[in-house]
């Protein structure tokens, strides 16, 4: 049986609410790229959506579909994980809210029961406008899945000159999209120097659990994590300092 959900009105649309930015599961990648709300409050999500497939893929593919696949290389996962997004899931037993990190269960497996739908994604108010960056490395520039993708979101306290609540999320290097909690803990409270960010990249690489496949070896992916995490942190940090 085919169940077409593409016209469920309450799963569409992007809105600023008291809880944060609510994004319906049926919002397409193209809509994310164009959305003035996303570009203002969570531009890293538009950056990630922009790299998904080609125009045709972005016009049809939805954010909810991308997350519900549970594919570890998905591009919206790291951006949303770095912003500590929550998801709303609904089914015959009612509606529940989960941290996105708990929604991902394993490769191509999510917390969705077979009779449940992903309704929306909420970027919490505390993360709106948080300086962030998304980087993806694929085998080609256009229409390629990530060998590794990384998102970083940071605040920098201008008085203490210190990282506050740094968040690093990694894709395609573990059974699910993951955070890099040790690298985050290392940065917390530290001055935003290039040495600190390089070290955080190296720590993140040890937290990755990549596999070798026909596209890249595990070692190569680990090296990519180290480099991309450092660069994503530096870009997020520059945005944080530019905003001050």
């Amino acid at each position, binding site marked *: 049986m085919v169940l*077409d959900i*593409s016209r469920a009105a309450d799963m569409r649309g992007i809105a600023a609410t008291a809880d944060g930015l609510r994004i319906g599961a049926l919002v397409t990648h193209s809509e994310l790229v164009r959305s003035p709300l996303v570009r203002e409050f969570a531009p890293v999500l538009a950056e990630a959506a*922009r790299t998904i*497939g*080609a*125009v*045709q893929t972005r016009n*049809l593919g939805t954010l909810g579909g991308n997350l519900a696949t549970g594919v570890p290389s998905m591009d919206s996962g790291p951006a949303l994980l770095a912003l500590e997004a929550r998801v709303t899931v609904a089914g015959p037993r009612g509606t529940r809210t989960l941290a996105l990190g708990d929604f991902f269960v394993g490769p191509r497996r999510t917390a969705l029961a077979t009779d449940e739908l992903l309704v929306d994604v909420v970027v919490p108010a505390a993360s709106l406008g948080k300086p962030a960056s998304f980087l993806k490395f694929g085998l080609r*520039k*256009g229409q390629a899945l990530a060998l590794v993708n990384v998102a970083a979101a940071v605040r920098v306290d201008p008085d203490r000159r210190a990282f506050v609540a740094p968040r690093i999320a990694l894709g395609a290097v573990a059974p699910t999209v993951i955070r890099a909690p040790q690298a985050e803990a290392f940065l917390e409270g530290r001055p935003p120097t290039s040495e600190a960010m390089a070290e955080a990249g190296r720590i993140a690489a040890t937290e990755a659990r990549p596999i070798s496949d026909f596209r890249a070896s595990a070692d190569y992916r680990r090296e990519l994590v180290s480099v991309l995490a450092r660069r994503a942190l530096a870009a997020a940090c520059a945005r944080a300092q530019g905003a001050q």
Partner: protein
Amino acid sequence: MSALRITVNGREHVLSAPPETTLLALLREHLGLTGAKLGCDVGDCGACTVLVDGQAVNACLMLAAQADGRSVLTIEGLATPDGLHPLQEAFERHAALQCGFCGPGAILSAKALLDANPAPTGAEIRDALAGNLCRCTGYTKMITAVHAAAQALRGAGAEMPPLGLTASPSIPLPGGEKGGGLS
């Protein structure tokens, strides 16, 4: 069976088709419009690209039922009795197609781009064509043709740029260089 009311190339069709019918199968097998090609059938090659409500989509990945109530443009709907569309003319003039298999899709992707952005940069044209794989002509002439068609559509000179002088833009990094080419 799904009951469908779909406007294709300006003409409304009332049809019924099994629910698993893709938009591509509907166009090719039910309506006899074979311009959109069945290539990879998994959304990679773009040979099946059509415009649905003006947006480029892979017809192989869209169910016909999802196009119910919408307006579809295929390559067959582009030319008028008066002549080819400026994009078709430019593709012909700049020899942007050899075997032609990817042509209907590439031209429709370019149309969606030019409808939204009448003066695209080289980087924007490359991005718009990234989902249309060509394996014989290559992309350089297509990019030149899209620039030329954009210029023709803007009315910036009734003449097409002379052949050979429409220097192909160098390949920039994605999201990096804006510009290049003739824009």
